[in-house]
């Protein structure tokens, strides 16, 4: 237990919370209630990628390591974070060895062993399992138990960032004895297991009502005998963000409300009621415009929006730059996100070592300069004020998902673009269609049958390598890949691809940061991705709930063991 004290002490260093938490006795603070306006459907994150499911399950099941509120990797069920320096990661970057803490037990009292970890890997990597977290196990060759507490993961390629497996709420350890009959195609049939997983976390499930409410109680076998401070916990789901905010900030019925995506003034009014506090933190989520470098003209048939047909005018870098310059990002933040957003010029805005400052010129809107740029590039205004050159009109189809804030953004941006002589037609598509990957639908964000599209994306954890990999040449969605792939702009640069290949071989964090920034800058300075707003997470807790440390790099409930009642 000494190690765990140290761990938590380090996280909450210097804060009064640690002292308060250390004094508390398990269960002495009674009941805590949490509301998520999206209701959890299942408590097995391997069968669902939904945030609501990941975060609710993080109360019960835990990974080997995770990210703290600052994005730093910390050991959780493991003794320490393996690195090349401490010998945990092999020199050739193809294997990582985790060592479990001693004496850990499941909530049913049985010991946690390396067999459980090995089993969890088998469970997710089973070809018929439909594991939602399979990408975290990318290029894993084998997971072996060296002894009861030691696990070695071997990759089939050098893996400079080997912390995707068993790190974070999306990759926790399942109990082998509970799940051993649930492999592969049988995974979905294990309702009891999926609703009531046995874990090592601070709470265990009493009753799970799918899409409604979870009742939990303190895990009697939790590794720290003084924690958690709460004896019971209710995790209510459903409704909308406004109602969740109201329940914490105005009526005080709940202690914690997740992800309050509300208009800034609404949130401020709620907070004025004096019952709770709004907290925010920034991860890597960026609302951005994607520029289509290929021609989405329907007359092209099957070759529509493929690299065989370059876009008639968006291939001109000047036009793309002008589109970016005409946008007033601060106004967008003020209107759409308030406290929960800040203007950004990077697609990789965080963690700090990866955040570039080379592109910050975009923070100031400059319509005049944008006009000049287009004038100089030979785009001349026609009779109706829309610019054209060689019979090509600057007329844009601008699509996004249906969402009030996004429609506000569309209207504003359309106005700004019209000021620089670019006309745009707005279109919004239901999120379930837009983000769905039905190859039969023409309206998915991957097919991108439009000139510009807007949405938000981020990356898991603190390492952007996979994320930056989206803009590799061969990642562009096309008929041959059933329109799968993350390279929406259909961007293609040998230089970019080679930097990515370098990054895949680099273990040194500073060198990785240099490469990451360079790739980010390349995308930014080519204006194939136009970042708009760095979006944060806004949640709220009641004034009587202490210990909340909002973490956007992992589950928001990552340190629930430290939560306690403020007297």
């Amino acid at each position, binding site marked *: 237990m000494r190690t765990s004290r140290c761990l938590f002490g380090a996280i909450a260093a210097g804060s009064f919370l640690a002292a308060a938490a250390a004094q508390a006795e398990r269960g002495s603070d009674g009941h805590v209630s949490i509301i998520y306006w999206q209701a959890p459907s299942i408590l097995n994150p391997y069968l*669902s990628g939904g945030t609501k499911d990941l975060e609710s399950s993080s109360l019960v099941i835990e990974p080997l390591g995770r990210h703290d509120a600052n994005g730093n990797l910390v050991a959780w069920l493991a003794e320490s974070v393996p690195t090349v320096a401490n010998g945990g990661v092999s020199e050739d970057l193809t294997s990582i060895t985790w060592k479990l803490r001693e004496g850990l037990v499941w909530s049913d009292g049985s010991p946690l062993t390396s067999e459980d970890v090995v089993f969890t890997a088998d469970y997710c990597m089973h070809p018929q399992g439909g594991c939602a977290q*399979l990408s975290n196990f990318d290029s894993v060759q084998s997971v072996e138990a060296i002894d009861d507490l030691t696990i070695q993961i071997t990759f089939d390629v050098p893996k400079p960032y080997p912390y995707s497996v068993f790190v974070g709420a999306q990759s926790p350890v399942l109990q082998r004895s509970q799940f051993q009959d649930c492999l592969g195609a049988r995974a979905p049939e294990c*309702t009891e297991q*999926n*609703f009531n997983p046995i874990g090592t976390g601070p709470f265990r499930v009493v009753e799970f009502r799918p899409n409604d409410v979870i009742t939990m109680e303190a895990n009697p076998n939790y590794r720290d005998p003084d924690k958690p401070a709460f004896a019971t916990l209710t995790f209510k789901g459903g*409704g909308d963000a406004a109602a969740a905010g*109201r329940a914490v900030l105005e009526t005080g019925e709940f202690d914690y409300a997740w992800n309050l995506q509300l208009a800034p003034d609404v949130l401020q009014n709620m907070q004025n009621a004096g019952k709770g506090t709004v907290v925010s933190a920034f991860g890597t989520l960026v609302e951005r415009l994607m520029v289509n470098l290929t021609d989405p003209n329907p007359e092209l048939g099957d070759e529509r929006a493929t690299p065989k047909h370059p876009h008639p005018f968006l291939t001109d870098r000047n036009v793309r730059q002008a589109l970016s310059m005409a946008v007033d990002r601060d106004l967008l933040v003020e209107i759409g996100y308030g406290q929960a957003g800040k203007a950004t010029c990077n697609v990789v805005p965080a963690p700090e070592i990866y955040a570039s400052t080379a592109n910050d010129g975009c923070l100031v809107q400059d319509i005049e300069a944008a006009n000049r740029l287009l004038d100089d590039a030979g785009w001349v205004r026609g009779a109706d004020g829309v610019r054209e050159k060689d019979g090509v009109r600057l007329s844009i189809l601008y699509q996004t998902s249906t969402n009030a804030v996004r429609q506000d953004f569309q209207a504003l941006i359309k106005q700004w673009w019209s000021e620089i002589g670019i006309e745009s037609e707005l279109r919004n598509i239901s999120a379930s269609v837009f983000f*769905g*990957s039905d190859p039969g639908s023409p309206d998915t964000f991957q097919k991108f049958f439009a000139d510009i599209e807007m949405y938000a994306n981020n990356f898991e954890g603190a390492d952007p390598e996979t994320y930056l990999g989206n803009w590799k040449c061969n990642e562009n969605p096309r008929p041959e890949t059933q329109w799968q792939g993350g390279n929406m702009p259909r961007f293609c640069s040998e230089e970019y691809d080679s930097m990515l290949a370098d990054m895949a071989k680099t273990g040194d964090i500073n060198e990785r940061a240099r490469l990451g920034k360079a790739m980010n800058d390349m995308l930014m300075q080519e204006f194939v991705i136009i970042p708009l707003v760095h979006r944060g997470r806004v949640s709220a807790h009641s004034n009587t709930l202490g210990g909340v440390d909002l973490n956007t790099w992992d589950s928001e409930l990552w340190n629930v063991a430290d939560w306690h009642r403020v007297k």
Partner: protein
Amino acid sequence: MFHYTVRRLLYAIPTLLLISLILFLLLDLAPGDPTAQLPLTIPPDVKERIRASLGLGEPIHIRYLLWLQQFFVNESLHLISELTGWDISGDRQRVISWQTRSPVVDIVIQRLPQTLWVVGLSYVVGIAIALPIGIISAYRQYSWFDQVGTFVSMVGFSVPTFFTGVLLIVIFSVHLGWLPSIYDTTHVVTDWNSFLFQIRQLLMPVFVLALFNAAQISRFMRASMLDNLNLDYVRTARSKGLAERAVILVHVLRNSMIPVVTVIALGVPSVFGGAIITEQIFKVNGLGQLLIIAIEASDIPMVQTLSFIFAILIVLFNLIADVIYGILDPRIRYD
């Protein structure tokens, strides 16, 4: 009547099969992807595997037949097993939700109590309010009572529940702090205090829905009473020297209730269907909320099964309404 009922039940079978097929086709043709709600950080090939594991790769007729078998055969066998304790269902695959990976019917059964408590109670309360209002409004047509009743019905009918619901929450939960704004579905009534809490948490959602139901039914009641009040048999009853109370309650009301009872019976399936908006506002998480979440998540087995259960209830209560009509009105004979 018995033969008629049996005949109608037999006719219902092809009707329901056709409904199930249309539902299935509609759901299948509608755009939507069960993995659309997953974070973008999950790569497309993983999503593809998830879809395959859900059975989406099979051709549509196979999936339809599979659903039919799962719903009619496997679920029935399971139900029999549950009721009798005999293990005849074996490990036959039941209808499984894509979101929760658990049997849809179990979730539906889990949701029924809160839906019946809230929506059912509001229906009963609505009827209890509506009938006297309708009767008095008609008897004292154009009196101030009738005018107020008309106004309240108009408000109840035209002001959406998402407005009245939120308004009540702001007044009674936020400002006055008297009532909870979020329904606790895990609450169990064990003693007087917990019963009082149950009443308090039921108060707002039941009121909102009851207002809406009462508005509708009181209008029907009033119209039906007015139709009957001017008929000669009422004059006959008066000329018999009956007290006015007896004339209204025995003669007029009994005849006026015939169409109203039918309307009430036809409204019962909507009780089971839940009140989607009200359930969302008060977080009652009944069947309506279950359906809307399933639709958002493109959980086709859940949507298909729920819609089909509603279809069964609608067909059933249509039949019940007709039978009640036949019982209440001696002029109707079905055989």
